[in-house]
């Protein structure tokens, strides 16, 4: 497969997952701020902003504008609308490599969300966009899985989706656990909802909301699709499948990186993780970044000198 095509598929998938994540977090956050609690609206928006737009967060978040900025900010690079348009742009570049159903769905989703022409004070409108994206993302994932060959293209799509998901989860956990440690039950429900995890958590651990147990679940539960461990396992699968196809490439570095990442969720004792949670999450994010760079160097923008060493 052409490197450019693989790259576009990967980024289409990352952007789509990013929009998906943002829609979950915003829906949960908006649900939260409607309830009175010991946290102020500003604090809760700050948490949302710092998990969705890490660079843009500062201590004085304007609660009135936060929702607008995260949904439709025309300048910001983090808004949901920007993510959908990023996914569509990448899909457009490889229009022939994806199924018509995928393209048509993504194209329609883009027109739907841009068609709202949102004004900054229109919370109800912003939440409608969030719902459209929520539904649209589920559907896009389903259409993708159902309509293309599960070959190399699919593996790059999977890789993009899960590396994005793992990073988003870590950032979100960091915002909840490290920035405000003393959240109440409502906030914990908010966190679980942000990961579409409330019902799955209750099934596995009952409705008793213990922070450690929640962290354990969202980080380490191998059966839950929005856990870090699940995401890393899927990344590993995708990378193995890709390297099995391209026997000639030197995959040691990528294998070492994904191996180390998986070891972090499989073998580090839970007590240690919770004690140093911020450091632990930062390490996972950093290693995902290294992995992204290594994959890019191995399959996409490899130096020609390296290509001729084989």
């Amino acid at each position: 497969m052409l490197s450019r095509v693989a790259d576009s598929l990967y980024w289409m998938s990352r952007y789509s997952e990013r929009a998906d994540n943002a829609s979950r977090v915003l829906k949960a956050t908006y649900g939260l701020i409607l309830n009175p609690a010991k946290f102020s609206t500003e604090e809760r928006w700050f948490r949302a902003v710092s998990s969705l737009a890490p660079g843009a967060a500062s201590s004085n978040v304007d609660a009135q504008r936060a929702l607008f900025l995260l949904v439709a900010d025309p300048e910001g690079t983090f808004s949901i609308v920007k993510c959908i348009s990023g996914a569509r742009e990448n899909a457009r570049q490889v229009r022939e490599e994806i199924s018509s159903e995928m393209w048509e769905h993504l194209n329609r989703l883009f027109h739907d969300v841009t068609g709202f022409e949102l004004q900054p004070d229109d919370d109800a409108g912003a939440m409608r966009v969030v719902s459209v994206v929520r539904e649209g993302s589920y559907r896009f994932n389903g259409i993708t899985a159902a309509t293309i060959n599960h070959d190399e293209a699919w593996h790059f799509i999977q890789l993009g989706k899960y590396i994005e998901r793992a990073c988003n989860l870590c950032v979100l956990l960091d915002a909840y656990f490290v920035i405000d440690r003393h959240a109440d039950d409502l906030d914990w429900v908010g966190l679980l909802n942000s990961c579409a995890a409330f019902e799955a958590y209750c099934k596995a651990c009952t409705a008793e909301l213990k922070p450690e147990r929640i962290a354990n679940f969202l980080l380490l539960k191998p059966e839950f699709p929005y856990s870090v461990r699940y995401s890393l396992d899927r990344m590993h699968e995708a990378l193995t499948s890709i390297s099995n196809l391209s026997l000639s490439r030197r995959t040691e570095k990528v294998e070492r990186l994904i191996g180390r990442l998986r070891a972090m969720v499989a073998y580090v004792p839970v007590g240690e993780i919770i004690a140093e949670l911020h450091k632990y999450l930062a390490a996972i994010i950093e290693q995902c970044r290294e992995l992204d760079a290594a994959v890019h160097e191995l399959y996409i923008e490899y130096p020609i000198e390296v290509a001729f060493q084989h």
Partner: protein
Amino acid sequence: MIIDTDASDRGGAETLRRYELKSAYDEMFRAVGHPRKQYRELYNLLLSLGPDELRRSKREADQSFFNQGITFTVYGSDKGTEQIFPHDLLPRIITAAEWERIERGLTQRITALNLFLKDVYHEGKIIEDGVVPGNIVYTCKHYRREMRGIKVPRDVYITVVGTDLIRNPEGNFVVLEDNLRVPSGVSYMLTSRRVMKQIFPGLFQKCRVRPIEHYSQALLSTLRFLAPEDRSEPTVVLLTPGAYNSAYFEHAYLARQMGIELVEGRDLVVHDNIVYMRTTFGLQRVDVIYRRIDDDYLDPLVFESGSALGAVGLFNAYRAGNIAFANALGTGVADDKAIYAYVPKIISYYLDQDPILESVETLLMSDPAQRDYVCQKLDEYVVKAVGESGGYGMLIGPHSTEQERSEFREKISAQPRNYIAQPTINLSTAPCFVDGTIEPRHVDLRPYVLYGEKITIIPGGLTRVALRKGSLVVNSSQGGGSKDTWVLQN
């Protein structure tokens, strides 16, 4: 329109009632109510179908085009609007005898033009012998001095050709334009055939239409023929400017049909004069590039330095004989509209034959006498800019205003070499289904020619229609559409 009584009893005749014959040659009717032999089956069908049935078929055809994704992107819109290519429901039918002549004529013409290109970029004998003036050749917008002395693979310069033919009022096919650079539209020919088989299966069978579906295989084997001889399993790719190009659909379609990679310039890497594409499995050597990018953008080292559409070093790899381009570079010199005037001489110079297909009388504005003559009678002539295509830079005298004519007079006297004039030709008309009735519209014909081991002409082509009533401009950028073209078996 006069219709014999038993036909009008069948109810469908009302769609044909407004069909009027004028001075142009009509593809379907010899005289009112008298279809030509090859159109008899279609005529009978039309008599049996009412406007509602035709409308239904048209909707079905539109839907089929849309579902197949046969769309083009409308420029100037960031909303990603895609429209289906305008098309007409009724086929244009050509007899076996007519086609045989077209085939011979095009083969002769393409052979001669290819020899001309080889000569112009090597010894230049035709110039030395005074048949074609050197100053016309060397001032062509698309003449590429970089091509001097370069041996192109198999001596084939023009691999893919789409020649525009028109039918004059006497009923003869005449060459209007040679498109020797990157002719497009073949995907519309192929997809509209698929749609027509769906809509008119019965008619299709009765008429015995020659197939065109082998185009993609023929194109692939033509391209493979150009590969360097030591490459036994050559890799062929299609080079596109990218998803934003209006012909992207066609590029993607052809690549898919041939099972070859659709690449952009940024996918290509040249190392030691060998071209590779970057794949996730490593660099893969490329042997033949079917490029759908103009010469100017292929290699920023040699041509437009600001272009990001091609790849650095492609031209050196070409010069080294490690890569083949289809078409070769610099072929535009032979489809320049001033050179067009010399094609009959070019044919007799190289082949010692008379041209089988006529050309349109062409006056060169660089010739002072011809210029003065035309400038006085601009309302009778069509004036064209020599290096343009797609119907741009053109004045259609009889349909022009005094202001347009005076603008063209100025343009011509400022750059006489840049213009030619031709008498206005009344293109033939063919029946089209428009707004519930069948009316005549002007058409041309673009057959597709492949030049590899031998010259292959796909029996059919793109019939372009000027869908606006009375209009003579068939280009899709200016309100034109297409029709399926049926060449009948003997």
